[in-house]
């Protein structure tokens, strides 16, 4: 299982804060993003346009980053702290 988290506007769009997605073996973040877009088509606008950052276990990740069972992946819309 990969724990997938949505923050701020993405949480509102998806209507969930956390979903658990089963993965078998190692996959890339790109593969996981495809699964997420199947489950939540409203994520396409953000993921296709890269209007977000993605973290894996709280570190910034790229589409090539390898995801494994037990990881936490978070979809992070543009920041507005400070």
């Amino acid at each position, binding site marked *: 299982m990969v724990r997938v*988290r949505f*923050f*701020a*506007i993405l949480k*509102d769009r998806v209507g969930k804060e956390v979903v658990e997605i089963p993965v078998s073996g190692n996959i890339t973040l790109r593969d996981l993003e495809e699964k997420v877009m199947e489950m939540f088509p409203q994520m396409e606008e953000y993921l296709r346009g890269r*209007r977000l950052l993605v*973290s894996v276990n*709280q570190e*910034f990740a790229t589409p090539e980053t390898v995801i494994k069972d037990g990881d936490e992946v*978070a979809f*992070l*819309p*543009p*920041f*507005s*702290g*400070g």
Partner: protein
Amino acid sequence: MEMVRVQREDFSIDEEIERVKKTSKAIGAVVTFLGTGRDISRGERIQGLEFEHYEGMAEKKLAEIRNRALKNFNVLEVAIVHRVGKIGIGENIVLIVVASQHRNDAFMCCEWCISELKRITPIWKKEFTEKGEIWVEEHP
């Protein structure tokens, strides 16, 4: 008390500066940036703000900013506090305290810290306006 924190409660600037000053007798300059809730943003009248953060990662990024600041600037100490939750107009949002021997280093470093905070820290602002609630997207 940690030198970088994310918290719901307000902070005392005197207390944060005192904590920083205690770390070295060589400190001659302390530059502070305080971000506060403005009443107007992008032409809209703001009624209030709410900040959300990615707990754990936000704190980690603030610690990273502090460590890089201490390594790359000629400064003696850096403290960063960011509030989350509901914040009213005029209230404190974020505080950055930078101490150095000479003032130029503290000014440069403090400006860098707030830019870097906005760039890499997973914190999001929601504005409550007459037209409704808006998640602000400042740094794509």
